[in-house]
């Protein structure tokens, strides 16, 4: 077979088409630079881009959680266990993530993948698009000299907290740019973040069950605002998308949107450049390693849809294939070439300080019943728990956004499969175990749970620890024979303190709102497989900074010892921020793109 792969040389080679890659592709291609985006996953289009008006995404619960498959890998403790992945998550036997459990055993997990598809994680996310607060960018300064931090006996927080090398003011214009170009609805009033411009589309009327969140937040004096969501509610000229008469559906979180109203990076940022002659998207193309000569990346090696080896070259190479996979790609390249390893990992920090979020919340039965199938992912949010005053009053190192979820358990199969568990590794377990649910008892279960439960979540910074890290697994290989990612992490005692405090705060919202009975509440550290839980917010591992001895990337997200290698997915973050990370990844990628305009 010949291997005529087309064009080989570009101004920019971008690995990954999600939140970290697409803003750069958009900016550079618009400026006339030649750009290729290499995406491991498929290109699935919304209806309006298809001649026959069909989408590859469906309103089908079995798309989010597919049929049973079994883990077949050797030397993992959960060999034989069932898993139920989405149609655009990787097959765990082909490309597993492995984490180390408390007992030292290795286990395969579905957690920590975003999605492998053009658009990446923005295809499946709920679309919560919060800015970080100014304080999130300077947690080292904020915590200096404090003696009031809870459950931090060794002073780890003060030793490990880092200020970002950029401050809120520097990234603020790019937040606005992302909000405008991505297409986000929400409200600005009552957010504790300064805005130079309001680019939000207007939000839709909230789901009726969310009025309890209003009641609870108001009773506690928590200023509230409509959760910014990456779903268009009006025509969106930057992407050419048209609004829908009826955009609300619980097929939102963990579902791709067949109508393209959810502002994933394919419809919002890549579609507008897809007709340009200087832009190329290669879907179904997996990058295997990078090759260098001196301080330059000279070749990007990949496999196309048929598995054939190809190479492309770029004046700059941007790695943005989600933090775990980006770190893995750099480590694999280093494993193949000692010179590469010395340049990318001179200080043994690559893969270290892996981060996710401290997350959790509360859930309760509310009076009455509501149609939760007519909803977006969230209605109300508050920054109340992100103020300096709140943090000092509660002995916390960093703050959190709190918001309600409306689409969870809104559809019948998801109600059953998440019964007693919202964890992707343990899905279905409680329902199948609860054999008492038959006939009348099953009716009672449905009567009790369908459209009656309300949950409120928090999303908070995790304490950075060097021991939390991404490595290459010593024995398990993917379908290309490459070592897979190995996740080793734990929760710091201050993380647990923080999660306990915030979970109770979420529960208090529900109590004050008139919850029936005491809410269930807690932090993810209490979960059965707490070490695996990642919320699909995979951050850190290649943090940026001002000191080359303390970071993997410089303030522009360039690898210190390479002239043309950048990492722009969540891996760059030195702290994880008190909110969902996607908007900040997008804003930072727009910032880096502007810097690159001067150099390519």
């Amino acid at each position: 077979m010949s291997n005529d792969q087309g064009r080989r040389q570009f101004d920019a080679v971008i690995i990954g088409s999600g939140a970290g890659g697409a803003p750069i592709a958009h900016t550079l291609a618009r400026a006339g630079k030649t750009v290729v985006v290499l995406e491991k996953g498929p290109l699935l289009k919304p209806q309006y881009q298809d001649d026959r008006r069909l989408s590859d995404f469906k309103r089908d619960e079995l798309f989010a959680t597919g049929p049973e498959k079994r883990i077949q890998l050797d030397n993992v403790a959960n060999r034989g266990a069932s898993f139920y992945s989405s149609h655009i998550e990787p097959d765990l036997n082909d490309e597993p993530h492995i984490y180390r459990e408390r007992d030292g055993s290795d286990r395969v997990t579905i957690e920590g993948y975003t999605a492998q598809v053009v658009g990446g994680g923005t295809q499946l996310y709920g679309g919560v698009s919060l800015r970080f607060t100014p304080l999130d960018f300077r947690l080292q300064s904020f915590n200096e000299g404090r003696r009031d931090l809870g459950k931090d006996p060794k002073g780890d927080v003060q030793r490990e907290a880092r200020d970002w090398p950029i401050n809120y003011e520097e990234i603020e214009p790019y937040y606005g740019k992302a909000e405008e170009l991505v297409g986000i609805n929400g409200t600005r009033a009552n957010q504790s973040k300064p805005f130079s411009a309001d680019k939000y589309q207007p939000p839709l009327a909230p789901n009726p069950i969310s009025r309890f969140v209003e009641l609870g937040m108001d009773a506690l004096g928590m200023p509230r605002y409509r959760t910014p969501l990456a779903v268009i509610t009006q025509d969106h000229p930057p992407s050419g998308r048209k609004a829908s008469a009826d955009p609300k559906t619980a097929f939102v979180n963990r579902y791709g949107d067949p109508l393209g109203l959810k502002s994933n990076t394919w419809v919002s940022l890549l579609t507008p450049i897809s007709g340009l002659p200087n832009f190329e998207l290669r879907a179904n193309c997996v990058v295997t390693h990078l090759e260098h000569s001196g301080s330059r990346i000279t070749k990007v090696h990949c496999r196309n849809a048929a598995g054939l080896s190809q190479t492309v070259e770029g004046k700059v190479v941007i790695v943005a294939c989600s933090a775990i996979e980006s770190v893995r790609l750099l480590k694999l390249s280093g494993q193949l070439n000692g010179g590469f390893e010395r340049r990318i990992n001179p200080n043994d920090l690559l893969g270290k300080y892996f981060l996710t979020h401290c997350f959790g919340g509360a859930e309760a039965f509310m009076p009455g019943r509501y149609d939760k199938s007519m909803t977006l992912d969230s209605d109300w949010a508050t920054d109340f728990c992100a103020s300096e005053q709140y943090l000092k009053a509660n002995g916390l190192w960093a703050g959190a956004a709190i918001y309600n979820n409306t689409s969870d358990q809104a559809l019948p199969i998801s109600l059953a499969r998440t019964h007693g568990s919202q964890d992707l590794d343990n899905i279905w377990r409680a329902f199948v175990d609860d054999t008492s649910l038959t006939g009348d008892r099953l009716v009672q279960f449905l009567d009790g749970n369908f459209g009656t439960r309300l949950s409120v979540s928090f999303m908070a910074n995790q304490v950075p620890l060097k021991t939390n890290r991404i490595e290459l697994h010593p024995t398990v290989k993917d379908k290309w024979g490459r070592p897979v990612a190995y996740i080793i992490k734990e929760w710091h005692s201050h993380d647990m303190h923080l999660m306990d405090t915030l979970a109770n705060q979420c529960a208090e919202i529900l109590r004050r709102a008139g919850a029936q009975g005491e809410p269930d509440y807690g932090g993810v550290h209490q979960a059965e497989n707490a070490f695996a839980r990642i919320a699909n917010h995979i951050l850190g591992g290649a943090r940026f900074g001002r000191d080359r001895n303390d970071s993997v990337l410089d303030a522009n997200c360039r690898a210190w010892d390479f002239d043309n290698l950048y990492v722009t997915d969540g891996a760059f973050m030195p702290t994880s921020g008190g909110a969902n990370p996607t908007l900040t990844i997008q804003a930072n990628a727009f910032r880096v793109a502007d810097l690159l305009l001067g150099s390519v």
Partner: protein
Amino acid sequence: MAVETIQRDDVYVLNYCAKLLARDDRSPRHNFGQFSDDALTARIAEPWRFPIVDSYSDGVNFEQSYRYNAVTFVYFAQGSALPGAVGVIGTFGNLYDPVPLRRIAETPYYTMTVVVPKGEVHQYKYVVDGEIRLDEVNPQRVILENGQPWSRFFTHLCCIPLTFERWELGILNRLTSHILPFETEDGRNFLERFYNTADRQTKDTQYAHAYRLDQPVGVVNFIDKLLAKEESHRVIDYRTCLELIDRVLRRRNPVTEPSQMPKEMYRQLYEEMAQDRVDGWDYGRYGSPRFFLQLLRRHTFTGAFCHPKYGGNVGAAGWAYLEERYRDANGQTLFQWRRIMERPLGSSMEYHG
């Protein structure tokens, strides 16, 4: 028979091939016990996705199009020498007249898409440079009366039994009914109303073949199709356990057919299985009746409330049950599934399924 073929672009096909077929690794890491380790199906991911049975639309009349699927064949050429001509023969067209597949440039994949009515089962084989071959990727096989194996696929809303014998269907019907709400008085009344009042069009489009089903909401049919395709590794669990259940029930009541036995016997059997202690169960052949019950619970609930294209939730009866049961003080339903589902199943003017 005229075959209607349509063009699907290369990316549509490669979206499946890259993830599921392309690889260097040759270990049987996708064999959950249903394949031999040297079969291609043991080495590739989700081989059941081939041929690709997907929604069809002519781009204009979505309700008319709803009666059909677009079925995309993918022939995966193994080895370094590529064939010159690949075609497919099958019962969806003329058995003696291969429909040609085109090669996707620079790949070992050959493809063609054909329009096939919903509710059907078909046999097919590839013709590769004149030689007739089974589809090595698709695990579905059927042995015809003349002893010849053929590759098989079925389209959405299929109600023809593919996995189970009649006696197995009978027992499964009883077990799944025990789990679901439709044997309660409210549930029975609902189903009677629902199926009696369905209009002619709904009957035609949603369960044209439902007369074959003597089971509420088609859950057993869903399981029959799931085991024929996505979860074929679970056939062995069902085969073994249904045989053991049949034996247990006959021992307890030698005069009545198991499918006709009183409700109380199924209730008791269910409870014993839940406790993992079934009197008369052959534990040497299947160690945990509770494990099978758990499997059955997942399949049953999924079948009752999944999209009807999978063969359960016939006519969306499961969704309609929730729609009717949960209403606000003004009588408005609190599960408005119709507004988000494609026509003619639902009423969305925007989503086409």
